[in-house]
Every structure is written in structure tokens, then in C-alpha cells.
């Protein structure tokens, strides 16, 4: 009856100045399971909830290394993410080959931003149905970037995208000031706590559905910094972190830190 005439392609504005195809793509990001990213002065972490299509299947990966110094977390269409990830890997490798250095993270993010924007301005193309969190280190230190299907990219201190990610963002906003000086372990715990906020009622973090990735710079004895390569942790490797943020284990490790009282009770 009331068919929307302005959402057939991504080149037509609606009279309200909206491009529906781009908004639908943003909606696809919200269908993906939640991913959280946080950056401190020394590290950037990505944490994610993995989903399995059915009881008998394996869990779909959410965190991907791009190069030694960068990695991404994805929410939305995995196959679209694969295209972007391959592109990013190629660009990083090409940059390493021609300049002999790690590609600056902002340069890389700007590239996928431009690439995605083109899809929103050409007839017959469609926007990518995936949002990314890009974590990496370069000469300026750790960075976290958000990428949206519209081609928008933005540097973030902490962010969450995907299903029910608003709850995670609320947690992040509440603890925003703590992140800058967090160490590696603390940052991961903040990430997992934010992730827990987004879980549905009777679900919880398990070693099967939780992924953690870290990248950072570490101070050497001689005062210089050394990049700590992007590494993804899955399965048994994340069990200690999950336990440290479990509801019943909350008191013990958290008070040892002298922090952690900042979670809502």
C-alpha cells in the first residue's frame, strides 16, 4: 500500500534528505553480535561475543588480525567484512613493501572510509553491511577507530557496535575517565564487563563465545617503546579473564586491584 519510493537504490535522497539504503546498512550492523573496543595510553583491546548458527556448528569469528600492528572487530555481514579485511591486509602489506614501516592506523581507516563511501554514491552499488572497530598502534601510540557502512570513520576512546550495544556503551561512558591509565589486564576486564552488560538475560560469557584481542606498546628498560603485535585470544586462553569478571568472583580479584567498585551493583 504505502510503498517507500526512496529506498530502491543508494543514490536517491528521500524528501527528508535521507538515504534509506545507507540506513538499512547501518541496521545490518545492529543485527551482528556485539563487539567492544577500548584504547588506553599504552594498549587497545577488542572483545567480542561470537555466535553459533546452531547448536552443532562452530562459532563465527569476530576478531581478525590485519597486520602486525592492526586488527579489526566486525559486526554485521561477515562476508562484507571479509572483503574489507582483505583490502586492509593488502594495503598494509603494500605500505610495508614500499616504505618499510607499519601503515599509520588513521591512513588505513581513511582508506576503507573512502572505499565504503563510493558505494553510497553510485547507482547499482550497495553499501557494505558491516561496521568495524579498528584497533592498532603506530608512532603516535594506540588507536581505536569506528567504521560505519556510510563511510564514516571516527577515532574513539572506547566504543561498542552490534546487537544491544547501547548497554555496553552506557558502561563505557560511565567508566570513561578510568581507561586512559589502564594496563593491559585492566583494559580487558573493562571490555568484558561492558560486553556482559549487552548480554541477554540468561546468557553469559563462556570460553566458547568470547574473543579477546590486544595490541599495544610496551616500555623497554632503556626507555624506548616496542610495539606489541596484535594478538587474538580464544577458547581456554580467555578463561582466566572471564573468571575474573564473573559475578561471584567479582569481589576477590577486583578488590585486589583497588578498583572495580565502579560497576553498578
Amino acid at each position, binding site marked *: 500500500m504505502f510503498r517507500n519510493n526512496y529506498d530502491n537504490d543508494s543514490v536517491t535522497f528521500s524528501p527528508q534528505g535521507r538515504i534509506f539504503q545507507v540506513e538499512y546498512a547501518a541496521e545490518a550492523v545492529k543485527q551482528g553480535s556485539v563487539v567492544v573496543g577500548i584504547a588506553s595510553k599504552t594498549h587497545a583491546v577488542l572483545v567480542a561475543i561470537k555466535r553459533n548458527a546452531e547448536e552443532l556448528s562452530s562459532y563465527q569469528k569476530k576478531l581478525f588480525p590485519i597486520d602486525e600492528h592492526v586488527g579489526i572487530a566486525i559486526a554485521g555481514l561477515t562476508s562484507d567484512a571479509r572483503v574489507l579485511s582483505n583490502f586492509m591486509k593488502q594495503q598494509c602489506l603494500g605500505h610495508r613493501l614500499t*616504505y618499510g*614501516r607499519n601503515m*599509520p592506523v*588513521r591512513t588505513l581507516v581513511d582508506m576503507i572510509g573512502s572505499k565504503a563511501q563510493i558505494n553510497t554514491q553510485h547507482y547499482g552499488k550497495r553499501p557494505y553491511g558491516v561496521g568495524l572497530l579498528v584497533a592498532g598502534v603506530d608512532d603516535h601510540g594506540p588507536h581505536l577507530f569506528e567504521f560505519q557502512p556510510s563511510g564514516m570513520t571516527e577515532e574513539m576512546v572506547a566504543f561498542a557496535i552490534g546487537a544491544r550495544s547501547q548497554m555496553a556503551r552506557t558502561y563505557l561512558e560511565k567508566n570513561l575517565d578510568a581507561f586512559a591509565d589502564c594496563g593491559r589486564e585492566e583494559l580487558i576486564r573493562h571490555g568484558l564487563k561492558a560486553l556482559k552488560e549487552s548480554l541477554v538475560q540468561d546468557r553469559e560469557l563462556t570460553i566458547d563465545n568470547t574473543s579477546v584481542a590486544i595490541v599495544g606498546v610496551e616500555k623497554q628498560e632503556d626507555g624506548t617503546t616496542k610495539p606489541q603485535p596484535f594478538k587474538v585470544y580464544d577458547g581456554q586462553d580467555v578463561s582466566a579473564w572471564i573468571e575474573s569478571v564473573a559475578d561471584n568472583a567479582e569481589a576477590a580479584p577486583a578488590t585486589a586491584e583497588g578498583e572495580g567498585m565502579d560497576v553498578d551493583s
Partner: protein
Amino acid sequence: MDHRPQAWGRPRDDVYGAYDHSYLQNSGPRQATQAPIVTGTSVIAIKYKNGVVMAADNLASYGSLARFPDVKRLRVFLDSSVIGFSGDVSDMQFLDRHLTELSIDEAYEDPSSDSKAGQLNAANLHKYLQKLLYKRRNDFDPLWNQLLIAGFDGDSKPYLASVDLRGTSFTSPSLATGFGSALAQPIMRRYAATEEDAAKLSREEAVEVIKECMKVLYYRDARSLDRYSIAVVTKEGVELKEDEQLEKQSWAFAEQIKGYGTQTV
């Protein structure tokens, strides 16, 4: 006689014969550079404790003719590296424009910070130029230069490297192009044969060695000039002096040289 304006300033056909237009044909195979035309002679450079010193004279020769006696052949890149050009001057000017473009792009990379962190250092620049020159040689259209690149590498250590028109590249505590590799290199090796020796040299010593070498080159190299440019690269930046005069020349030795020229031995 032909008085039409298009004949003004041209050799008269009745005196010199018709002009051979076959040189101007644009059919036939494409010809890339077959030989350098206007050339610069040696560039020399030596590492010392806290940086690198480089020098080249201000002459651009047209064959054996000292055609342009005020051509600056050292170029500063991003206030942190120096490139010395020997070989074809028009290819040098092409590279100069290309590098200006590159440095503008690089400056846009991170306009907020005025630190050198994240900008291309000498090692990155050398890698890039090596790829560029090797690409052009593979196109059978080489940039007819040999370049010396001086500055600092990713670990903030003094860096000195060379690339030639074939893309061949190497590094050494001291480097010289053209005649300099026969005349200046042995002198520089007396002071900096190894990296350890170079790390013991003071700035004053290094400058002195370079000046001595420039003098030897002027004595012996018939395509050289006694006005030269000298650059000192330090962590603080580049100090470039472009109008230096060779001092304390002594041509007394010239009388002893026999065996060629007009003398009868």
C-alpha cells in the same frame, strides 16, 4: 629570402639546407632516456656520532661544459632527511617535484601534532626511492641518478644509504657517488671504515673530512666546481649551507703531474 614570420630566427634553407624533420617524428618506437644530458657530479656523505654530513658541488655540466654553476643538488625532506642527487639534473628536478608532493601528503597525515613521530624517516624514504627507481628501470625508462639519502632510521640511529638508476641500494658508514667513489671514498674510509669508527667521529671531524674530500674532488674531477653545498643532519633537524667556497686550495702539486696534456715529458 623567406621573410614570413614563421621563418624568423631559423637557419636559412638556402644556406644550411632544409631542416631534417625526421628528428621530430612521433611515429616509430618510443624512446626513453638513452643517456643523461645535464649532469651533476659526485655527492659524498659520512656518518658521525650524532648524525650524517653530506656535500655536493653546485655545478650542472652539459657534457664537459660547466653550463650551470649555481644548481643546488642537496634537498631537505620533511626537515629530517637530506637527499643528494648526482646524475641527470632534469630527473633530479622531477624527483624534487615528486618528493614535494609526497611531503605535502605526509604533512596532511597528522596536522594536529607537530612532532616528527609518524612521519617518513630517512630509512622509509630510501626504501620508497629504491622502489621508484627500480620501477622506472623495469619500464626501460630509468631516472638517471644516483642518490644518497641521509637522516635517521626507526630506532633514531644515523642512517645513510644509496640508490642508483637500476634500483641497486646499499648502506655504509660513508658513501660517495660517481668520481667520488674512487677519489673520496678511500679518504672517508680512513676515518670511518666501520659503524663503530663512525660512531666515534665528532661533528667537527666529519665536516672536516667532507671538506677535505670536496677539495680532492675539485683538484681531480674536471666536472667539479669549488662552490658547494653542505648539509649536517642531526636529531634537531637539517643545517644546510648552499653557497660554500672551497678554502685553502693549493695547486702546487699540479706542477708535479706529468704524462698528459701539452708537456713533453
